[in-house]
């Protein structure tokens, strides 16, 4: 019987080993506490221990894009409810709540931008919107970003943070895997570069589709990058997990990412890559 779970959109927030939930501005590693403006000023990285706090999509765009260059696209796209999905709550209600909480129409923000004066398309996922889960709207906005990038001949930079496919859209959420892969195929046919920055967490359906197909894959320190998260692996296999199971550092050792780049270095690093791919 298939009792395994490989898509979890609700409970991956603290799937990194040894990190229990705390207040949003308390460092789970060294317990330092920060005011919002302190954290923001340091790119939401713990000044004491270097722990990388989650960054919201709009904050990420502000960190990466040159001031005033981001021009959002497809902001009006919204998820439909093709299955009339209702668990403990209706999917439509969850969508409305997520929009209220994040101010975003869905779990990705995409548009034209410049990074270090290099034009690009920039697509940033929002984990706070239903665990960054990928439904039809996320897939569509990513695919359209690919198409705009190919049309303009500008590289696509995508920052990922996702618990996987959005199960409230059933099989259509699974279809966002081959859909985004198709979009990457068209991007590659146009010889347009794709760079992904894998932020915490990049898992399941997003890792198993477009995120892994980038020309260059950059990871943030400590990010969980796994098809199946540690809890499910542990529950399913009863294996003893390595301490760094699924983390960026482990992925780097096993050859799956090109570089782990600290957030403070990320913008110049992307700038260098964009210059090389220009």
């Amino acid at each position, binding site marked *: 019987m298939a009792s395994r779970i490989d898509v979890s959109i609700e409970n991956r927030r603290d799937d990194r080993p040894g990190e229990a939930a705390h207040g949003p501005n308390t460092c789970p590693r060294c317990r330092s506490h920060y005011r919002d403006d302190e954290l923001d000023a340091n790119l939401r990285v713990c000044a004491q221990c270097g722990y990388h706090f989650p960054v919201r999509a709009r904050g990420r765009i502000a960190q990466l894009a040159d001031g005033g260059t981001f021009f959002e696209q497809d902001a009006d*796209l919204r998820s439909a409810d093709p299955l009339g999905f209702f668990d403990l709550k209706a999917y439509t209600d969850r969508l409305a709540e997520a929009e209220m909480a994040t101010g975003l129409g869905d779990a990705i923000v995409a548009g034209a931008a410049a990074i270090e004066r290099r034009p690009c398309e920039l697509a940033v996922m929002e984990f706070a919107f239903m665990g960054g889960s990928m439904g039809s709207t996320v897939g569509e906005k990513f695919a359209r970003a690919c198409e705009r990038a190919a049309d303009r001949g500008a590289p696509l930079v995508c920052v990922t943070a996702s618990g996987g496919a959005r199960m409230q859209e059933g099989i*259509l959420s699974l*279809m966002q895997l081959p859909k985004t892969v198709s979009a990457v195929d068209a991007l590659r046919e146009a010889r347009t570069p794709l760079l992904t920055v894998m932020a915490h967490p990049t898992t399941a359906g997003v890792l198993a589709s477009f995120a892994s197909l980038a020309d260059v894959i950059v990871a943030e320190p400590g990010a969980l990058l796994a*098809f*199946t998260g540690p809890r499910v692996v542990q529950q399913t296999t009863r294996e003893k997990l390595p301490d760094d199971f699924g983390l960026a550092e482990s992925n780097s050792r096993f050859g799956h990412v090109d570089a782990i780049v600290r957030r403070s270095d990320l913008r110049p690093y992307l700038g260098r890559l964009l210059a090389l791919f220009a």
Partner: protein
Amino acid sequence: MAADPESKPGQIEQLRLRERLTKLRDLPLLRGVGVSGELGRLERQIERIAAEPSADEVWHSVELARHQDRPYTLDYVERIFDDFVELHGDRALADDPAIVAGLARFRGRTVALVGHQKGRDIRERTYRNFGMPYPEGYRKAIRIMELANLHRFPIFTLVDTPGAYPGVTAEQHGQGGWIARCQLEMIGLEVPIVSCVIGEGGSGGAVAIAVADRVLMQENAIYSVISPEGCAAILWRDASEAKKAAAAFKPDARHCLDLGVIDGIVPEPPGGAHMDHDAASALLAESLETALGEIDGNEPKARRLARRDRFRGMGVFVTP
């Protein structure tokens, strides 16, 4: 809620459903039926698609899709194909028995075959890892599909897995990345590809080998983003609510057809494929032949682009 038969599907869904049904009635979408002559059955199936399937009906599919006597890939291979030569190994690390791949004759021509393989008894189940591939399995699949592409053999894939294996080594070897690369590979092939979900089409591990020109499902197969138990554990916080979850996320063939995810439903013998492997094989063979015939004559580059467009178009969203 939607799991409840008397509830109403949303407006958009109703619209889509009506549109699709109009098309459905004009198309030989229930593959194999025309050949086997059960036209009345086709009618009845269309009627059943028109109605929202009940929670019981959906759950029945889940049970049959996982039935321990259900035919597996190699059961079909030995009945449908001639001169099957299995090919082994990913040329890097291992041969993954959870995926079988090889060349065979089908209706007088050479084809490549890739499929998940579960095991019938305990020993074989362990050997086949319950049909849950490692990255090595997807690399083998990629290798055989590249071989087929080079030598212009059409490709059939048979999908039957609870999902890709969720283990430490599988993760370390790049499970997510290889599922992604297997899909990219299939999008790029210039030969015809027909996939059929013959049992459990479980998540990324299933779609990894189902990026085809024509995607079919057997009548009682399921195709889903997550197992009912997994969905229930997360959303209902209770794995025993699996039946409720299944009714909500609708992994059955009729819903998949309605949502435009598959192109046709392959009939099974009365009671399900497990009742008669030979009859199930004959129906599947007819369906594979019909589906292949529809795409076989197309120009390779056009077929490749049509396949890409097919998947590019998946999903439902709104622009207010």
